[in-house]
């Protein structure tokens, strides 16, 4: 019972903190700029995709539609959203330490594990809100401006066209997997937050780890190739697999497993650290 009351408290805190709206504002602004740019220069963008195929294929209908726009926006932003997530989740424990409120919180009759899990749950909910807002801005607003239609995707296998009816479930599944990758980032920043008494450290460290892992993922060095498949950053773009034909199910499951292992591992470290931590702030 106290756990749920504390989780409600965490929702109130996140909702009242001005920094929680930076992410929402940033997504709104960036997506609006992309939508505006597409509205103005969309035809040029489409020609970049269709030009190589124009001699063998003819393109008809509303190619520059909301589905394609949403896919482009997701591809561009899903790498940057983690920073916005870490702004809030990296502050969940360390922010309380910096403010001094952690002293009061930890002297209440609720276990430290419950305190941490309440914060985690609230952080996951915030992550979901961010992703749903991105989905709304990209898919719903995109369709309102550009209309709907079949979706054309250029991937490793060439040009793939999905019928309009075949698109929504792919987006829903893709967003679910993207959510899992963002929750991994949220868990990482929460874990780092348990090691720090200021907010900046965990936020910057989260980004540094993401950048480091991304660089390792792209290096063609044999010794690193063994670890590359296990880095969570390698699986942050796994949502795109839902736009392959046929869908690489095994690959998607593998990505989901690796992300889940990261989440469980990091959360275990966070709980252990938070329970052992001397509150000295």
């Amino acid at each position, binding site marked *: 019972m*106290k756990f749920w*009351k*504390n989780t*409600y*408290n965490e929702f*109130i*805190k996140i909702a*009242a*903190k*001005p920094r929680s709206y930076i992410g929402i504002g940033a997504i709104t602004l960036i997506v609006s700029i992309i939508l505006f740019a597409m509205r103005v220069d969309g035809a040029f963008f489409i020609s970049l995709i269709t030009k190589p195929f124009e001699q063998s294929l003819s393109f008809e209908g509303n190619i520059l539609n909301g589905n394609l726009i949403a896919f482009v926006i997701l591809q561009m932003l899903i790498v940057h959203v983690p920073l916005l997530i870490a702004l809030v989740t990296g502050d969940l424990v360390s922010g309380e330490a910096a*403010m*001094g*409120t952690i*002293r*009061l*919180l*930890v*002297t*209440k*009759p*609720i*276990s430290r594990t419950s305190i941490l899990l309440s914060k985690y749950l609230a952080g996951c909910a915030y992550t979901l809100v961010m992703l749903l807002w991105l989905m709304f801005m990209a898919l719903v607003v995109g369709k309102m401006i550009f209309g709907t239609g079949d979706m054309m995707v250029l991937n490793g296998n060439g040009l793939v066209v999905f019928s309009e009816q075949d698109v929504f479930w792919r987006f829903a599944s893709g967003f679910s997997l993207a959510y899992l990758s963002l929750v991994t980032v949220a868990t990482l920043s929460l874990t780092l937050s348990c090691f720090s008494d200021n907010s900046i450290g965990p936020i910057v460290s989260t980004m540094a780890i993401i950048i480091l892992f991304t660089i390792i993922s792209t290096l063609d060095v044999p010794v690193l190739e063994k670890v590359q498949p296990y880095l969570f950053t390698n699986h942050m773009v796994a949502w795109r697999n839902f736009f392959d034909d046929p869908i690489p199910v095994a690959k998607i499951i593998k990505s989901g497993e690796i992300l889940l292992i990261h989440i469980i591992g990091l959360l275990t470290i966070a709980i252990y650290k938070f329970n*052992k931590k*001397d*509150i*000295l702030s």
Partner: protein
Amino acid sequence: MQEEEKIIEVSHLVKNYGKFNAVDDASFDVYRGDVYGFLGPNGAGKSTTIRTILSLIKPTSGQIKIFNRDMATHRPYILQRIGCIVEKPDFYNYLSAEKNLEVFARISGVDIPKKRVHEIIEFVGLKGREKDKLRSFSHGMKQRLGIAQTLIHDPELIILDEPTTGLDPQGIIDIRNLILQLKHERNKTILLSSHILSEIELIANRMVIINKGKTIVQGSVTDLLNARDLIVSFQVNDVEKAKQLIQSSTLNLVIESTDDKNLFIHIAQERIPILNKLLCDSGILVYSIEAKRKLEDYFLKLIGA
């Protein structure tokens, strides 16, 4: 006679940070209904002890029992019956006073109606400011809200760590009166840490002094501060004559030291008028008699005053 109930029992508490002993074998007991002064100079280990009592930090060794239960195994049960301020009264600056209280009330272990929140706000004198964000509050107002937060779930034991630090004189008086009100009107047991002896003297009935993490002395404030064996300074017109008179008298007194105007004498309280009469009868003019309590001297030495 009914035995007093121990509310806090701290036994041989040790907290080390590497080679540094923050608390070194501290032991003391707080009884039901006490306003217990926890006195020591800055850096003596008061806050570390209080943080350990409240399970904010883990002790290296020793035992803490509160309400006759071990903190290590009965944490939620114990914390539900405690209200506390540890060092500064820090709150969520982006929430109002009322919301802050609601947040902490929600996890205090008892159902607290909104009416109770308003009652407590009124009790600590913050009525009319409850909707204001904490960022607009002065330190004194935050301290009052801190006390409101300790009382919101009507705990039996209140732990206040340096509650008057940073307050102006009026703020200190207000908080002191609030604490006395809690003792007399609400019958709370209060553990109050301070580095100011006079503050403890005015509020507490029992106290412990710690220094460098060790318990130096503990007992009732009356006994400790009004010990029968005092050092009394007698300011006289002729120190040498007075000294010879005392040494040749049958009073058998020990003169601790002298200076140009004063004699400092170990003397029991009831013998002060006898010595005064002796001096006056011998034609020595006594300008002032001032009792210096051993504990006060000792404490002043501790804090380097």
